[in-house]
């Protein structure tokens, strides 16, 4: 019954688990569970979700673009209005990136050899994928697929661990 992945001390799973549990205990300690009004519950949910994302991103350590983007997002969110300016700057940068990407795509479509293949973009789905994967706006398709693969792997780990925690709590 023992999962061999967990026995590795430095594996992603164990790193995420320790961090997330630490965060949970912090949240628990911060606000003792006296009232369970919906707003408080909702706040707690938000905090836990942020903690989960944060611990996952920290476990990946900024080796990946998506983790860096996620950490940045979380930090700016927590900072609040101070970072409105920077967020607008970043958004404009992203818009520029999109524009250049589309221009590149248009160029490539005109110069691609006619081999009947879908040469450049999957346009709609590609954009959707960029929206879903954090930090995906500023990447070309090649790197985006890499990031997606790693992101999927991390998400599955996260879901597994959280399921186990929730099951444990529910017993």
């Amino acid at each position, binding site marked *: 019954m023992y999962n061999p992945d967990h026995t590795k001390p430095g594996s992603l799973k164990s790193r995420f688990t320790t961090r997330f549990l*630490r965060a949970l205990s912090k949240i628990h300690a911060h606000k003792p*569970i006296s009232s369970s009004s919906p707003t408080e519950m909702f706040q707690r949910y938000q905090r836990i979700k942020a903690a989960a994302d944060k611990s996952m991103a920290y476990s990946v350590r900024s080796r990946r673009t998506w983790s860096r983007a996620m950490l940045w997002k979380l930090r700016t969110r927590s900072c609040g209005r101070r970072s409105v300016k920077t967020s607008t700057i970043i958004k404009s940068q992203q818009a520029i990136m999109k524009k250049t990407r589309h221009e590149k795509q248009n160029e490539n479509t005109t110069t691609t050899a006619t081999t009947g293949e879908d040469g450049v973009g999957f346009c709609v789905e590609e954009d959707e994928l960029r929206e879903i994967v954090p930090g995906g706006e500023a990447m070309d398709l090649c790197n985006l697929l890499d990031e997606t693969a790693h992101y999927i792997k991390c998400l599955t780990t996260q879901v597994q661990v*959280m399921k186990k925690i929730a099951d444990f709590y529910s017993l």
Partner: protein
Amino acid sequence: MLHRLESLESCNYNGMDVAVLEKQAAGLKWQQQNYVVQNSNLVDLCASSVPQFQGLFGSNLGRGQMIELKRPEVFLGSDDFQEFVNFPVAGPEFGDSEKLDLVPHEAAADYCISRTSSCQMTAHNTSVMKEEREDTILEKMESAIGSGKESFNKRKAEAVADHKSKGKRIKGEGESEVKAKCSTEISRDSSKENSKASEVQKPDYILVRAHRGQATDSHSLAERARREKISKKMKCLQDLVPGCNKITGKTGMLDEIINYVQSLQRQVEFLSMKIAALNSSVENLPMKEFPAYVANFPAAAKLPEMAGLPSYFQLNPLQKESVNCMLNESMLPPQTATEGIASASVSSSSGITQLQPFSAWNMDPQEHVWIYVRHGRYMKDEEPVQHTCT
């Protein structure tokens, strides 16, 4: 014999070098022990005559080249080759001088020419010999030319690359292929249909193979390399995402990937909500033991999951109410809303019944709520329930 050699020397010297080199290589391959000395001779020859070879390869030999190539093939297959093999037994006698080194080879060439008409070759042998000869030529070229002659190395690399990938294709393809191959080896611009395009084998270069009928300009090559990379990564993603084996198209695959990522994200949200709700009723555990505990949590005790869908859990009525309110107030995106994440109390004896899915948004907090499950299965409480469908 000597006057013949001189005549040979005078005419088409460039072509002779190639033939000479090839015959040397062929001979070397056949009986290597006799050729230890000849090997060194070959190296000397090559080293000294590299500029000549450069000129050789730079010029457009075309037909002359082909003719010269024919002879060794013919030559190799014959029984007379044995005589050739034994011929330069007197190799050591020739010493170090360049001219003398050429003598046995030219004699051999002369020997070849005289034997041309008398030899009978089968097509199979021809092709086999061709391959072996090219093999040996390229090997010898690699070993001999270790100097820093860059352009020559490039051409060698091209030839090597061409040869290696050609492999068994040479068999049965006839001489036109050989001719084309030679012309590509020699000429830098290869824009013909049968030509192969390869880049220099430097560490930061990517070797790209252009097949028959494909354009060979740098743009399309780069595009093709990029496309191949992308398709490779799509295959990796296919392994990660469950249930993607049947889907072949790129767009379908991407759709599936997007759906999967979205479902994973929703699962994370749901689980964090669940933990938020449940956390209130449990004391905090010692941190050191918990990770190991979680790690070793037996799979059998886990509640059965349905294909990556959120699992059901137990809540007391107060929590249920708060969760429901939370749902109603929450800022969950419409997609998750329609999926209707809600909680219900589940008795262990109740089985999973198949019913139509619906969302829990308009439900009265006092009522029990249903869990909406994507594929229509959900948990039902034993107590009677009143609900409204949306």
